[in-house]
Protein backbone atom coordinates (compact mmCIF):
# COMPACT_ATOMS: atom_id res chain seq x y z
CA UNK A 1 0.00 0.00 0.00
CA UNK A 2 1.31 3.39 -0.78
CA UNK A 3 1.77 5.97 1.86
CA UNK A 4 -1.57 7.16 3.18
CA UNK A 5 -2.39 10.62 2.12
CA UNK A 6 -2.33 12.87 5.10
CA UNK A 7 -5.43 14.93 5.50
CA UNK A 8 -5.36 18.60 4.78
CA UNK A 9 -1.65 18.96 4.20
CA UNK A 10 -0.90 22.60 4.52
CA UNK A 11 -0.73 24.57 1.31
CA UNK A 12 2.83 25.63 0.68
CA UNK A 13 2.74 28.97 2.31
CA UNK A 14 5.35 28.70 4.98
CA UNK A 15 7.56 31.70 4.92
CA UNK A 16 10.93 32.05 6.47
CA UNK A 17 9.85 34.73 8.89
CA UNK A 18 11.57 35.02 12.22
CA UNK A 19 9.37 34.09 15.13
CA UNK A 20 9.21 37.50 16.72
CA UNK A 21 8.21 39.14 13.45
CA UNK A 22 5.45 36.62 12.89
CA UNK A 23 4.22 37.24 16.39
CA UNK A 24 4.28 40.95 15.74
CA UNK A 25 2.26 40.64 12.56
CA UNK A 26 -0.28 38.39 14.26
CA UNK A 27 -0.79 41.11 16.81
CA UNK A 28 -1.01 43.72 14.06
CA UNK A 29 -4.19 45.11 15.53
CA UNK A 30 -2.54 45.80 18.84
CA UNK A 31 0.38 47.35 17.03
CA UNK A 32 -1.81 49.70 15.03
CA UNK A 33 -3.69 51.03 18.03
CA UNK A 34 -0.42 51.36 19.91
CA UNK A 35 0.86 53.49 17.04
CA UNK A 36 -2.33 55.56 17.20
CA UNK A 37 -1.70 56.13 20.90
CA UNK A 38 1.89 57.16 20.28
CA UNK A 39 0.89 59.55 17.50
CA UNK A 40 -1.67 61.17 19.82
CA UNK A 41 0.93 61.51 22.56
CA UNK A 42 3.45 63.05 20.19
CA UNK A 43 0.84 65.44 18.83
CA UNK A 44 -0.27 66.68 22.24
CA UNK A 45 3.25 66.91 23.61
CA UNK A 46 4.14 69.16 20.68
CA UNK A 47 1.04 71.33 21.07
CA UNK A 48 1.02 71.58 24.85
CA UNK A 49 4.07 71.92 27.11
CA UNK A 50 2.11 70.47 30.04
CA UNK A 51 1.10 67.24 28.38
CA UNK A 52 4.28 65.30 28.93
CA UNK A 53 4.77 66.33 32.55
CA UNK A 54 4.71 63.59 35.17
CA UNK A 55 2.04 65.46 37.04
CA UNK A 56 -0.26 65.58 34.06
CA UNK A 57 0.31 61.95 33.18
CA UNK A 58 -0.41 60.81 36.73
CA UNK A 59 -3.42 63.07 36.77
CA UNK A 60 -5.06 61.68 33.69
CA UNK A 61 -4.19 58.06 34.39
CA UNK A 62 -5.78 58.47 37.81
CA UNK A 63 -8.86 60.03 36.28
CA UNK A 64 -9.08 57.35 33.69
CA UNK A 65 -8.61 54.46 36.10
CA UNK A 66 -12.35 54.42 36.81
CA UNK A 67 -13.07 54.11 33.11
CA UNK A 68 -10.36 51.47 32.81
CA UNK A 69 -11.74 49.37 35.64
CA UNK A 70 -15.15 49.33 33.98
CA UNK A 71 -13.62 48.58 30.59
CA UNK A 72 -11.88 45.49 31.97
CA UNK A 73 -15.26 44.06 32.97
CA UNK A 74 -17.09 45.24 29.87
CA UNK A 75 -14.40 43.56 27.77
CA UNK A 76 -15.55 40.14 28.98
CA UNK A 77 -19.18 40.89 28.13
CA UNK A 78 -18.21 42.20 24.71
CA UNK A 79 -16.02 39.22 23.84
CA UNK A 80 -19.13 37.10 24.44
CA UNK A 81 -20.92 39.38 21.96
CA UNK A 82 -22.97 41.31 24.49
CA UNK A 83 -22.72 44.94 25.47
CA UNK A 84 -23.42 46.94 28.63
CA UNK A 85 -24.19 50.66 28.77
CA UNK A 86 -25.52 50.62 32.33
CA UNK A 87 -22.18 50.59 34.12
CA UNK A 88 -22.11 54.27 35.10
CA UNK A 89 -25.65 53.99 36.42
CA UNK A 90 -24.56 51.04 38.51
CA UNK A 91 -21.76 53.22 39.88
CA UNK A 92 -24.33 55.89 40.74
CA UNK A 93 -26.76 53.47 42.37
CA UNK A 94 -24.35 51.28 44.32
CA UNK A 95 -22.38 54.20 45.71
CA UNK A 96 -25.51 56.18 46.55
CA UNK A 97 -26.84 53.35 48.70
CA UNK A 98 -23.43 52.91 50.29
CA UNK A 99 -22.91 56.56 51.17
CA UNK A 100 -26.42 57.00 52.51
CA UNK A 101 -26.01 53.88 54.65
CA UNK A 102 -22.72 55.09 56.06
CA UNK A 103 -24.20 58.49 56.80
CA UNK A 104 -27.01 56.78 58.66
CA UNK A 105 -24.51 54.98 60.81
CA UNK A 106 -23.79 51.72 59.03
CA UNK A 107 -20.34 50.27 59.46
CA UNK A 108 -18.38 51.41 56.44
CA UNK A 109 -16.85 47.98 55.83
CA UNK A 110 -20.30 46.47 55.66
CA UNK A 111 -21.54 49.30 53.45
CA UNK A 112 -18.66 48.72 51.03
CA UNK A 113 -19.51 45.04 50.77
CA UNK A 114 -23.15 45.98 50.28
CA UNK A 115 -22.26 48.44 47.55
CA UNK A 116 -20.40 45.73 45.69
CA UNK A 117 -23.29 43.37 46.28
CA UNK A 118 -25.72 45.84 44.72
CA UNK A 119 -23.51 46.07 41.65
CA UNK A 120 -23.53 42.29 41.38
CA UNK A 121 -27.30 42.28 41.80
CA UNK A 122 -27.63 44.74 38.92
CA UNK A 123 -25.48 42.35 36.90
CA UNK A 124 -27.75 39.47 37.82
CA UNK A 125 -30.72 41.47 36.54
CA UNK A 126 -28.93 42.48 33.33
CA UNK A 127 -27.57 38.98 32.84
CA UNK A 128 -30.93 37.29 33.39
CA UNK A 129 -32.64 39.54 30.85
CA UNK A 130 -29.89 39.15 28.29
CA UNK A 131 -28.96 35.50 28.75
CA UNK A 132 -32.19 33.80 29.71
CA UNK A 133 -34.83 35.97 28.05
CA UNK A 134 -32.54 36.84 25.11
CA UNK A 135 -33.49 40.50 25.02
CA UNK A 136 -31.14 42.61 22.95
CA UNK A 137 -28.33 43.68 25.29
CA UNK A 138 -28.27 47.30 24.11
CA UNK A 139 -31.96 47.75 24.81
CA UNK A 140 -31.75 45.78 28.05
CA UNK A 141 -28.91 47.76 29.52
CA UNK A 142 -30.29 51.03 28.19
CA UNK A 143 -33.50 50.36 30.08
CA UNK A 144 -31.63 49.11 33.12
CA UNK A 145 -29.45 52.19 32.97
CA UNK A 146 -32.48 54.46 33.29
CA UNK A 147 -33.93 52.43 36.14
CA UNK A 148 -30.71 52.32 38.16
CA UNK A 149 -30.06 55.98 37.53
CA UNK A 150 -33.63 56.84 38.47
CA UNK A 151 -33.31 55.05 41.79
CA UNK A 152 -30.01 56.78 42.46
CA UNK A 153 -31.58 60.19 41.79
CA UNK A 154 -34.49 59.33 44.01
CA UNK A 155 -32.60 58.24 47.07
CA UNK A 156 -30.03 61.05 46.85
CA UNK A 157 -32.58 63.71 45.86
CA UNK A 158 -30.24 64.26 42.91
CA UNK A 159 -27.58 65.70 45.19
CA UNK A 160 -23.97 64.70 45.66
CA UNK A 161 -23.36 63.32 49.14
CA UNK A 162 -19.95 63.34 50.77
CA UNK A 163 -18.38 60.57 52.78
CA UNK A 164 -15.08 60.01 54.54
CA UNK A 165 -13.29 57.03 55.93
CA UNK A 166 -9.96 55.26 56.08
CA UNK A 167 -10.71 52.97 53.16
CA UNK A 168 -11.74 55.83 50.89
CA UNK A 169 -8.69 57.89 51.80
CA UNK A 170 -6.38 54.97 51.16
CA UNK A 171 -7.88 54.22 47.77
CA UNK A 172 -8.47 57.84 46.81
CA UNK A 173 -5.18 59.42 47.72
CA UNK A 174 -2.91 56.52 48.60
CA UNK A 175 0.21 56.16 46.50
CA UNK A 176 2.89 53.56 46.05
CA UNK A 177 6.10 54.55 44.29
CA UNK A 178 4.37 57.79 43.42
CA UNK A 179 1.61 56.06 41.49
CA UNK A 180 -1.99 56.40 42.72
CA UNK A 181 -3.66 53.34 44.23
CA UNK A 182 -6.47 53.48 41.70
CA UNK A 183 -4.00 52.89 38.88
CA UNK A 184 -2.82 49.72 40.62
CA UNK A 185 -6.39 48.59 41.03
CA UNK A 186 -7.03 49.15 37.34
CA UNK A 187 -3.86 47.32 36.27
CA UNK A 188 -4.59 44.52 38.71
CA UNK A 189 -8.03 44.06 37.23
CA UNK A 190 -6.64 44.00 33.70
CA UNK A 191 -4.13 41.39 34.78
CA UNK A 192 -6.88 39.34 36.42
CA UNK A 193 -9.04 39.44 33.30
CA UNK A 194 -6.03 38.52 31.18
CA UNK A 195 -5.23 35.51 33.36
CA UNK A 196 -8.83 34.32 33.42
CA UNK A 197 -9.30 34.65 29.69
CA UNK A 198 -5.98 33.12 28.71
CA UNK A 199 -5.33 30.39 31.21
CA UNK A 200 -8.69 29.08 32.41
CA UNK A 201 -11.50 27.04 30.92
CA UNK A 202 -13.87 29.90 31.81
CA UNK A 203 -11.88 32.18 29.53
CA UNK A 204 -11.82 29.75 26.63
CA UNK A 205 -15.57 29.39 26.92
CA UNK A 206 -16.01 33.16 26.85
CA UNK A 207 -14.18 33.27 23.52
CA UNK A 208 -15.94 30.13 22.30
CA UNK A 209 -19.44 31.50 22.95
CA UNK A 210 -18.49 34.82 21.36
CA UNK A 211 -17.03 33.06 18.34
CA UNK A 212 -19.69 30.43 17.73
CA UNK A 213 -22.47 30.05 20.26
CA UNK A 214 -24.03 27.10 18.42
CA UNK A 215 -20.78 25.16 18.33
CA UNK A 216 -20.27 25.91 22.00
CA UNK A 217 -23.71 24.58 22.80
CA UNK A 218 -23.09 21.39 20.84
CA UNK A 219 -19.81 20.99 22.70
CA UNK A 220 -21.74 20.90 25.95
CA UNK A 221 -21.07 24.45 27.12
CA UNK A 222 -23.86 26.14 29.02
CA UNK A 223 -24.03 29.14 26.70
CA UNK A 224 -26.64 30.95 28.76
CA UNK A 225 -24.57 30.78 31.90
CA UNK A 226 -21.51 32.09 30.09
CA UNK A 227 -23.56 35.06 28.82
CA UNK A 228 -25.05 35.56 32.26
CA UNK A 229 -21.70 35.63 34.01
CA UNK A 230 -20.29 37.93 31.35
CA UNK A 231 -22.92 40.53 32.21
CA UNK A 232 -22.27 40.01 35.91
CA UNK A 233 -18.55 40.55 35.33
CA UNK A 234 -19.32 43.84 33.64
CA UNK A 235 -21.43 45.01 36.59
CA UNK A 236 -18.94 43.75 39.13
CA UNK A 237 -16.29 45.89 37.48
CA UNK A 238 -18.70 48.83 37.78
CA UNK A 239 -18.97 48.00 41.48
CA UNK A 240 -15.22 48.27 41.90
CA UNK A 241 -15.16 51.44 39.81
CA UNK A 242 -17.82 52.92 42.09
CA UNK A 243 -15.70 52.38 45.17
CA UNK A 244 -12.71 53.98 43.48
CA UNK A 245 -14.86 56.87 42.29
CA UNK A 246 -16.23 57.64 45.75
CA UNK A 247 -12.70 57.42 47.12
CA UNK A 248 -11.34 59.87 44.59
CA UNK A 249 -14.18 62.35 44.72
CA UNK A 250 -15.06 61.88 48.39
CA UNK A 251 -18.73 61.66 47.53
CA UNK A 252 -21.35 59.81 45.57
CA UNK A 253 -22.51 61.81 42.58
CA UNK A 254 -25.81 60.67 41.06
CA UNK A 255 -24.96 62.25 37.70
CA UNK A 256 -21.67 60.40 37.39
CA UNK A 257 -20.79 59.51 33.82
CA UNK A 258 -23.90 60.99 32.28
CA UNK A 259 -21.81 63.05 29.90
CA UNK A 260 -19.75 60.06 28.88
CA UNK A 261 -22.36 57.35 28.57
CA UNK A 262 -20.53 55.59 25.76
CA UNK A 263 -16.98 56.25 26.95
CA UNK A 264 -16.38 52.75 28.27
CA UNK A 265 -17.85 51.13 25.18
CA UNK A 266 -15.76 53.45 23.02
CA UNK A 267 -12.59 52.53 24.86
CA UNK A 268 -13.23 48.82 24.46
CA UNK A 269 -14.07 49.18 20.76
CA UNK A 270 -10.97 51.32 20.24
CA UNK A 271 -9.04 48.46 21.76
CA UNK A 272 -9.81 46.33 18.73
CA UNK A 273 -12.69 44.22 19.98
CA UNK A 274 -15.24 42.96 17.48
CA UNK A 275 -18.87 43.92 18.08
CA UNK A 276 -19.87 40.48 16.86
CA UNK A 277 -17.87 38.92 19.67
CA UNK A 278 -15.16 36.31 19.92
CA UNK A 279 -12.26 38.58 19.14
CA UNK A 280 -10.16 41.07 21.00
CA UNK A 281 -7.35 41.14 23.49
CA UNK A 282 -7.42 42.75 26.89
CA UNK A 283 -4.14 44.57 26.29
CA UNK A 284 -5.88 46.29 23.37
CA UNK A 285 -8.58 47.50 25.71
CA UNK A 286 -5.94 48.96 28.01
CA UNK A 287 -4.49 50.86 25.06
CA UNK A 288 -8.02 51.89 24.02
CA UNK A 289 -8.60 53.31 27.49
CA UNK A 290 -5.35 55.23 27.28
CA UNK A 291 -6.17 56.59 23.81
CA UNK A 292 -9.45 57.95 25.09
CA UNK A 293 -7.75 59.38 28.18
CA UNK A 294 -5.00 61.06 26.17
CA UNK A 295 -7.54 62.45 23.73
CA UNK A 296 -9.71 63.93 26.46
CA UNK A 297 -6.79 65.29 28.45
CA UNK A 298 -5.01 66.65 25.38
CA UNK A 299 -8.09 68.41 24.06
CA UNK A 300 -8.54 70.15 27.40
CA UNK A 301 -4.89 71.15 27.47
CA UNK A 302 -4.99 72.74 24.04
CA UNK A 303 -8.29 74.43 24.83
CA UNK A 304 -10.59 72.63 22.47
CA UNK A 305 -14.13 73.78 23.19
CA UNK A 306 -16.25 71.16 24.92
CA UNK A 307 -18.72 71.06 22.02
CA UNK A 308 -15.93 70.11 19.71
CA UNK A 309 -14.63 67.58 22.22
CA UNK A 310 -17.98 65.87 22.08
CA UNK A 311 -17.88 65.79 18.31
CA UNK A 312 -14.35 64.43 18.25
CA UNK A 313 -15.38 61.63 20.60
CA UNK A 314 -18.34 60.85 18.39
CA UNK A 315 -16.10 60.67 15.33
CA UNK A 316 -13.70 58.41 17.22
CA UNK A 317 -16.52 55.98 18.12
CA UNK A 318 -17.72 55.85 14.54
CA UNK A 319 -14.21 55.36 13.21
CA UNK A 320 -13.57 52.51 15.61
CA UNK A 321 -16.84 50.80 14.66
CA UNK A 322 -16.14 51.39 10.98
CA UNK A 323 -12.74 49.70 11.28
CA UNK A 324 -14.40 46.74 13.03
CA UNK A 325 -17.00 46.53 10.30
CA UNK A 326 -14.36 46.65 7.56
CA UNK A 327 -12.55 43.79 9.27
CA UNK A 328 -15.73 41.75 8.96
CA UNK A 329 -17.01 42.27 12.48
CA UNK A 330 -20.14 44.35 12.85
CA UNK A 331 -22.98 43.81 15.24
CA UNK A 332 -24.79 40.50 15.01
Amino acid at each position, binding site marked *: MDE*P*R*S*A*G*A*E*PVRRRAVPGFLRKLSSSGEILSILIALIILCVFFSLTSPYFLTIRNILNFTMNTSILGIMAAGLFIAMVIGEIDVSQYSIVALSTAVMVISIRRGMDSGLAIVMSFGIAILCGVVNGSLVAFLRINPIITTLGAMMIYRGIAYNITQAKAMGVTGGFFEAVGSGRFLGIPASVYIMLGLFLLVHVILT*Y*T*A*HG*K*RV*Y*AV*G*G*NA*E*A*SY*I*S*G*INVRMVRFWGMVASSAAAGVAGLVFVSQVGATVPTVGEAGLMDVVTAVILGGISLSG*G*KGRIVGTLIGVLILAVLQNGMVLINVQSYYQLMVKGVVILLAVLVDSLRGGGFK
Partner: protein
Amino acid sequence: MIPTIDQDCVLEMRDIHKSFGGLKALDGVNLDLRCGEVLGLVGDNAAGKSTLMKILTGFYHADAGSIWLDGKEVHIDSPKISKRLGIEMVYQNLELCQNLNVAENLFLGREIQRDPVFRFLKLRQMERKSVEILRKLKIDIQDPRKRVDRLSGGQQQAVAISKAVSFGPKMLILDEPTANLALKEIGKVLDIVMQLKEHGIPAIFISHRLDDVFHVCDRIFVLRGGHRVALKQSSETDHDEIVRYMFLGAGEESSRSA
Protein backbone atom coordinates in the same frame (compact mmCIF):
# COMPACT_ATOMS: atom_id res chain seq x y z
CA MET B 1 -41.64 -8.18 9.28
CA ILE B 2 -39.69 -7.16 12.38
CA PRO B 3 -36.01 -7.84 11.94
CA THR B 4 -34.31 -9.90 14.61
CA ILE B 5 -31.58 -8.35 16.73
CA ASP B 6 -28.36 -8.77 14.91
CA GLN B 7 -25.34 -9.25 17.16
CA ASP B 8 -23.12 -7.54 14.64
CA CYS B 9 -25.19 -4.40 14.75
CA VAL B 10 -24.15 -1.33 16.67
CA LEU B 11 -27.35 0.46 15.97
CA GLU B 12 -30.82 -0.53 14.94
CA MET B 13 -33.62 1.91 14.31
CA ARG B 14 -36.88 0.03 13.96
CA ASP B 15 -40.08 1.10 12.33
CA ILE B 16 -39.47 4.78 12.91
CA HIS B 17 -42.42 7.08 12.27
CA LYS B 18 -42.38 10.84 12.39
CA SER B 19 -44.93 13.38 11.19
CA PHE B 20 -44.93 17.13 11.22
CA GLY B 21 -48.55 18.16 11.26
CA GLY B 22 -50.07 16.32 8.33
CA LEU B 23 -46.75 15.70 6.68
CA LYS B 24 -45.27 12.24 7.08
CA ALA B 25 -41.53 12.76 7.20
CA LEU B 26 -40.69 9.17 8.10
CA ASP B 27 -42.99 6.27 7.57
CA GLY B 28 -41.79 3.07 9.17
CA VAL B 29 -38.07 3.30 8.48
CA ASN B 30 -35.70 0.50 9.53
CA LEU B 31 -32.00 1.22 9.63
CA ASP B 32 -29.13 -0.81 10.98
CA LEU B 33 -25.49 0.02 11.29
CA ARG B 34 -23.02 -2.84 11.52
CA CYS B 35 -19.78 -2.94 13.44
CA GLY B 36 -16.94 -1.22 11.62
CA GLU B 37 -18.88 -0.31 8.52
CA VAL B 38 -19.54 2.98 6.84
CA LEU B 39 -23.17 3.20 5.81
CA GLY B 40 -24.05 5.70 3.13
CA LEU B 41 -27.31 7.54 3.71
CA VAL B 42 -28.56 9.16 0.54
CA GLY B 43 -31.76 10.69 -0.71
CA ASP B 44 -33.14 13.78 -2.32
CA ASN B 45 -33.93 16.87 -0.28
CA ALA B 46 -36.88 16.24 2.06
CA ALA B 47 -36.37 12.48 1.79
CA GLY B 48 -36.17 12.34 5.58
CA LYS B 49 -32.40 11.97 6.05
CA SER B 50 -31.99 14.80 8.46
CA THR B 51 -35.20 13.97 10.32
CA LEU B 52 -33.95 10.43 10.82
CA MET B 53 -30.59 11.66 12.08
CA LYS B 54 -32.22 14.27 14.31
CA ILE B 55 -34.19 11.49 15.97
CA LEU B 56 -30.96 9.63 16.51
CA THR B 57 -29.23 12.69 17.97
CA GLY B 58 -32.13 13.57 20.22
CA PHE B 59 -33.27 16.79 18.56
CA TYR B 60 -36.57 15.18 17.52
CA HIS B 61 -38.66 12.45 19.12
CA ALA B 62 -40.01 9.68 16.94
CA ASP B 63 -43.80 9.29 17.00
CA ALA B 64 -43.35 5.54 16.97
CA GLY B 65 -40.57 3.03 16.68
CA SER B 66 -37.59 1.99 18.74
CA ILE B 67 -33.86 2.52 18.79
CA TRP B 68 -31.43 -0.20 19.84
CA LEU B 69 -27.77 0.38 20.64
CA ASP B 70 -25.55 -2.66 21.12
CA GLY B 71 -28.63 -4.80 21.42
CA LYS B 72 -30.24 -2.71 24.13
CA GLU B 73 -33.23 -0.48 23.63
CA VAL B 74 -32.47 3.17 24.33
CA HIS B 75 -34.62 6.25 24.68
CA ILE B 76 -32.94 9.30 23.24
CA ASP B 77 -34.79 12.22 24.72
CA SER B 78 -32.19 14.94 24.23
CA PRO B 79 -28.95 15.68 22.38
CA LYS B 80 -27.14 15.22 25.68
CA ILE B 81 -28.40 11.68 26.08
CA SER B 82 -27.46 10.88 22.51
CA LYS B 83 -23.94 12.07 23.18
CA ARG B 84 -23.78 10.15 26.42
CA LEU B 85 -24.81 6.99 24.58
CA GLY B 86 -21.82 7.44 22.32
CA ILE B 87 -23.45 8.87 19.22
CA GLU B 88 -21.33 11.69 17.82
CA MET B 89 -22.37 13.84 14.91
CA VAL B 90 -20.13 15.97 12.73
CA TYR B 91 -22.28 18.73 11.35
CA GLN B 92 -22.20 20.11 7.89
CA ASN B 93 -21.64 23.64 9.06
CA LEU B 94 -18.74 22.60 11.27
CA GLU B 95 -19.10 22.86 14.98
CA LEU B 96 -15.77 24.61 15.33
CA CYS B 97 -15.00 27.97 16.85
CA GLN B 98 -13.06 29.81 14.18
CA ASN B 99 -11.50 32.11 16.72
CA LEU B 100 -9.96 29.31 18.79
CA ASN B 101 -7.00 27.13 17.96
CA VAL B 102 -7.00 23.43 17.11
CA ALA B 103 -6.32 22.18 20.64
CA GLU B 104 -8.87 24.53 22.17
CA ASN B 105 -11.48 23.32 19.71
CA LEU B 106 -10.72 19.66 20.28
CA PHE B 107 -11.13 20.09 24.02
CA LEU B 108 -13.94 22.65 23.99
CA GLY B 109 -16.35 21.93 26.80
CA ARG B 110 -14.14 19.26 28.39
CA GLU B 111 -10.87 21.09 28.87
CA ILE B 112 -8.15 19.42 30.89
CA GLN B 113 -8.18 21.41 34.10
CA ARG B 114 -5.88 21.75 37.08
CA ASP B 115 -8.64 22.56 39.54
CA PRO B 116 -12.43 22.54 39.56
CA VAL B 117 -12.97 26.12 40.72
CA PHE B 118 -10.67 28.47 38.82
CA ARG B 119 -10.39 25.87 36.10
CA PHE B 120 -6.83 26.65 35.15
CA LEU B 121 -5.97 24.77 32.00
CA LYS B 122 -3.27 22.22 31.41
CA LEU B 123 -2.49 23.80 28.06
CA ARG B 124 0.62 21.71 27.36
CA GLN B 125 -1.22 18.48 28.02
CA MET B 126 -4.13 19.57 25.85
CA GLU B 127 -1.76 20.38 23.02
CA ARG B 128 0.12 17.11 23.38
CA LYS B 129 -3.07 15.10 23.39
CA SER B 130 -4.34 17.04 20.39
CA VAL B 131 -1.31 15.98 18.41
CA GLU B 132 -1.98 12.37 19.43
CA ILE B 133 -5.62 12.58 18.40
CA LEU B 134 -4.74 14.07 15.02
CA ARG B 135 -1.98 11.57 14.46
CA LYS B 136 -4.32 8.68 15.17
CA LEU B 137 -6.32 9.63 12.08
CA LYS B 138 -3.14 10.50 10.15
CA ILE B 139 -4.07 14.15 9.93
CA ASP B 140 -1.22 16.43 9.07
CA ILE B 141 -1.64 19.45 11.25
CA GLN B 142 1.67 20.00 13.00
CA ASP B 143 0.81 22.89 15.25
CA PRO B 144 -2.14 22.41 17.60
CA ARG B 145 -1.88 26.09 18.45
CA LYS B 146 -2.87 27.09 14.94
CA ARG B 147 -6.10 29.00 14.82
CA VAL B 148 -8.87 27.15 13.02
CA ASP B 149 -9.69 30.05 10.71
CA ARG B 150 -6.17 29.77 9.29
CA LEU B 151 -6.76 26.14 8.26
CA SER B 152 -8.11 25.02 4.90
CA GLY B 153 -11.67 23.71 4.63
CA GLY B 154 -10.45 20.13 4.52
CA GLN B 155 -8.25 20.59 7.53
CA GLN B 156 -11.17 22.10 9.42
CA GLN B 157 -13.32 19.13 8.52
CA ALA B 158 -10.49 16.89 9.69
CA VAL B 159 -10.38 18.68 13.03
CA ALA B 160 -14.15 18.38 13.38
CA ILE B 161 -14.04 14.63 12.76
CA SER B 162 -11.10 14.23 15.14
CA LYS B 163 -13.03 16.07 17.77
CA ALA B 164 -15.94 13.67 17.43
CA VAL B 165 -13.62 10.66 17.46
CA SER B 166 -11.80 11.89 20.55
CA PHE B 167 -14.96 11.38 22.59
CA GLY B 168 -14.50 7.64 22.00
CA PRO B 169 -17.90 7.27 20.36
CA LYS B 170 -19.77 4.08 19.58
CA MET B 171 -20.66 5.51 16.20
CA LEU B 172 -20.33 8.64 14.13
CA ILE B 173 -22.72 10.51 11.91
CA LEU B 174 -20.99 12.51 9.21
CA ASP B 175 -23.30 15.06 7.66
CA GLU B 176 -22.10 16.05 4.20
CA PRO B 177 -18.44 16.07 5.22
CA THR B 178 -17.26 16.70 1.68
CA ALA B 179 -19.69 19.48 0.76
CA ASN B 180 -18.15 22.89 0.13
CA LEU B 181 -14.66 21.50 -0.23
CA ALA B 182 -12.16 21.93 -3.03
CA LEU B 183 -11.71 18.77 -5.05
CA LYS B 184 -8.22 18.00 -3.80
CA GLU B 185 -9.39 18.33 -0.21
CA ILE B 186 -12.24 15.88 -0.65
CA GLY B 187 -9.83 12.98 -1.07
CA LYS B 188 -8.14 13.84 2.16
CA VAL B 189 -11.40 13.87 4.08
CA LEU B 190 -12.40 10.54 2.53
CA ASP B 191 -9.06 9.13 3.68
CA ILE B 192 -9.98 10.09 7.21
CA VAL B 193 -13.29 8.29 6.85
CA MET B 194 -11.36 5.21 5.72
CA GLN B 195 -9.19 5.62 8.82
CA LEU B 196 -12.34 5.45 10.95
CA LYS B 197 -13.00 2.05 9.44
CA GLU B 198 -9.51 0.93 10.33
CA HIS B 199 -10.12 1.98 13.91
CA GLY B 200 -13.39 0.08 13.90
CA ILE B 201 -15.58 3.13 14.39
CA PRO B 202 -18.82 2.65 12.47
CA ALA B 203 -20.25 5.68 10.73
CA ILE B 204 -23.29 6.88 8.88
CA PHE B 205 -22.12 8.95 5.94
CA ILE B 206 -24.67 11.41 4.60
CA SER B 207 -23.82 12.88 1.24
CA HIS B 208 -25.17 14.16 -2.03
CA ARG B 209 -21.90 13.30 -3.70
CA LEU B 210 -22.43 9.71 -4.83
CA ASP B 211 -18.81 9.34 -5.94
CA ASP B 212 -17.76 9.89 -2.36
CA VAL B 213 -20.42 7.52 -1.09
CA PHE B 214 -19.21 4.74 -3.36
CA HIS B 215 -15.62 5.48 -2.39
CA VAL B 216 -16.02 4.94 1.34
CA CYS B 217 -19.32 3.21 2.06
CA ASP B 218 -19.88 -0.53 2.49
CA ARG B 219 -23.63 -0.29 2.10
CA ILE B 220 -25.88 2.39 0.75
CA PHE B 221 -29.24 3.23 2.24
CA VAL B 222 -31.65 5.20 0.07
CA LEU B 223 -34.49 7.22 1.56
CA ARG B 224 -37.27 8.69 -0.51
CA GLY B 225 -40.36 10.44 0.78
CA GLY B 226 -39.88 9.03 4.26
CA HIS B 227 -39.51 5.43 3.07
CA ARG B 228 -36.51 3.22 2.70
CA VAL B 229 -36.49 2.48 -1.01
CA ALA B 230 -33.21 0.58 -1.14
CA LEU B 231 -30.40 -0.85 0.92
CA LYS B 232 -27.56 -2.14 -1.23
CA GLN B 233 -24.04 -3.40 -0.86
CA SER B 234 -22.08 -0.76 -2.67
CA SER B 235 -20.14 -3.45 -4.49
CA GLU B 236 -23.38 -4.82 -5.91
CA THR B 237 -24.88 -1.64 -7.24
CA ASP B 238 -23.86 1.35 -9.27
CA HIS B 239 -24.24 5.06 -9.50
CA ASP B 240 -27.16 4.95 -11.94
CA GLU B 241 -29.18 2.49 -9.91
CA ILE B 242 -28.83 4.58 -6.75
CA VAL B 243 -29.87 7.71 -8.61
CA ARG B 244 -32.94 5.88 -9.92
CA TYR B 245 -33.86 4.88 -6.38
CA MET B 246 -33.29 8.41 -5.10
CA PHE B 247 -35.46 10.15 -7.64
CA LEU B 248 -37.92 7.58 -8.91
CA GLY B 249 -38.24 5.20 -6.01
CA ALA B 250 -38.63 1.54 -6.80
CA GLY B 251 -41.80 0.16 -5.29
CA GLU B 252 -41.94 -1.60 -1.96
CA GLU B 253 -40.18 -4.75 -3.09
CA SER B 254 -36.84 -3.16 -3.69
CA SER B 255 -36.40 -2.54 0.01
CA ARG B 256 -35.14 -6.04 0.68
CA SER B 257 -32.13 -6.02 2.93
CA ALA B 258 -28.70 -6.25 1.47
